[in-house]
């Protein structure tokens, strides 16, 4: 009975757990951008990537005992918000002209 908790207790959640999780999240986001055609979902995937970065920053902030890493997350949030606004604006302008268009449909310019 006590073996399992002690084993669990022996396991410490170190920074690499968080960083690894961040890397996974980042990768999922990146892959999402590659495989989804709906531009909205692509934006969401980019948000996933930004979140992964945020997680990384917070983790580093803790291991370095430095507040700077946490402050950065604020700015990332602002940037994410601004990006989404403009991105959705572009999307609105685009989809208003071509309702239901996917990212693949917008491929007139090429070569």
């Amino acid at each position, binding site marked *: 009975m006590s073996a399992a908790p002690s084993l669990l207790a022996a396991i410490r959640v170190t920074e690499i757990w968080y*960083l690894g999780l961040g890397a996974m999240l*980042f990768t999922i*986001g*990146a892959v999402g*951008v590659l495989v989804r055609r709906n*531009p909205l979902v*692509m*934006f969401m995937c*980019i948000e996933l*990537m*930004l979140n*992964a*970065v945020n997680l*990384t*920053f917070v983790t*580093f902030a803790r*291991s*370095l005992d*430095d507040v*700077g*890493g946490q*402050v*950065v997350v604020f*700015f*990332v949030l602002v*940037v994410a918000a*601004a*990006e989404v606004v*403009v*991105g959705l*604006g*572009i*999307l609105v*302008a*685009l989809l208003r*002209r*071509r309702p239901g268009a996917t*990212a693949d449909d*917008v*491929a*007139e*310019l*090429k*070569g």
Partner: protein
Amino acid sequence: MLGIVAQLAPDLLRLPPVEWKAIVPVLVLVGGALLLLLVAALSRQKPARSVYALWTVLVAGGAVISEVVLWEEVTDSARGPFTAMAGAVGADGFSVFVGVVICLSVALAALLADGYLRRESMEGPELYVLMMLSGAGGLIMASANDLIVLFLGLEILSIAVYVLAAMHLRRATSQEAGMKYFVLGAFSSAFFLYGIALIYGATGTTNLTKIATGVASAGAPLGAEFRPDALLGGTPALLLAGFALLVVGFGFKVAAAPFHTWAPDVYQGSPTPTVAFMASGVKVAGFAGMLRVFYATFGGYRSDWQPYLYALAVATLIVGSVLAVVQTDVKRMLAYSSISHAGFILLGVQAGTANGVAGSLFYLATYTFMVAGSFGVVTVVARRGDNRTSLHEYNGLAKREPVLAFVFTVFLLAQAGVPLTAGFFAKFYVLRAAIDAGYWHLAVVAMLSAVVAAFLYLRIVVAMYMTDSDPDAVTERRLRVPYGARLALAVAFGATLVFGFLPGPLADSTQDAVVTVVARAR
């Protein structure tokens, strides 16, 4: 408000001193943009549209003046570069030089935009506002002394340009360009940010001065050539991965292969004056960030990043020149050419020497004129709808519009690197830097790619001078060259030739503008 707080609770919040001088150029641009926005929004009857452009030029000019004032200080040997805003801003010759170039790019693009907006029946001062704000972002990047500030500047610059790209609401390709630019830009920003995070983890700070000068665990500075690995053995993988991801971000902004893919599509689809800004201002800002981070901050890690910039330069040179060969759209051709120019500028960056930085700066400055002029001509020739950009539209242009054709030819030849144009000296300086640093093989690759790229410029010249006009083009109305565009073309033309004959003063200033680690707080 913060001031009030600070006054009320001095021990709670000790505001850093604000070095106005260092941020005046940014403030001028932002203030000018906001003023324009307010006036345009509040005034009953709309002012003449040219006023917007004029205002933008004035604001950019004001920013340039404030930069020049700053230049006097930072290049003064007694005073020199300084940091401001709690070390977030680094005011040095480099930031000033780049700032001036970006302001020029804003002004030129604004002049082009004037006639363009009227022709395309597009409204509003927003384009100018966004351009000025974007320019402010560029200035922020140039003077950023903190990776976060750099990132914010990059986003300010980019997000505004995403909007600019998508702004021509009646052209489907404009939105397509905007969408592509946005998605890919945000995507690459995420990589860039991740890179910042890794570097933060590796160094413990995002402040460039602190990174560069280093803070040992004991808290004693190790000097400019600080390398943590000197203590630990080998550059930490975290830092190296950070470099790689930063290169992704910068590479995207400057359109270096393999992160260039957006450029042709976006250049082709976006409103042409915007493209002029994109190809000059955005590229300049991207390279400014790159130089600040790699050359100045991580100069001690030169041997780590040089090989990869080398590879990037080779790929960019080849892709830019080779892919241009089969294009039939002039805007697209110029897009590829701008990629190959990025490769040339990378030559200077990767040399990792003061000469290299100076060469890159010279290249960027002169390229701004050449490319703004080129896209200026494209703007004019594209006619209403902004879609007459195919090569055959240029057939026989020399017969119909001899002056325009000649001016365009000069821009094209300058881009090809023909002597007695600024473009030649631009190539000369970066080549010299590369060779000086021992990278003669890269110089050879670059020159060979220039030969391939020359084909593209000559093709346009062939169309203009050696091909007969399309039958319907002859019967069409003559092209109207708006006054703004005339002015812009004249300035660009003059600069291209003047710097082609007398590059000395400009080259000397680039020597003063070599980026350094700004460590002195004023």
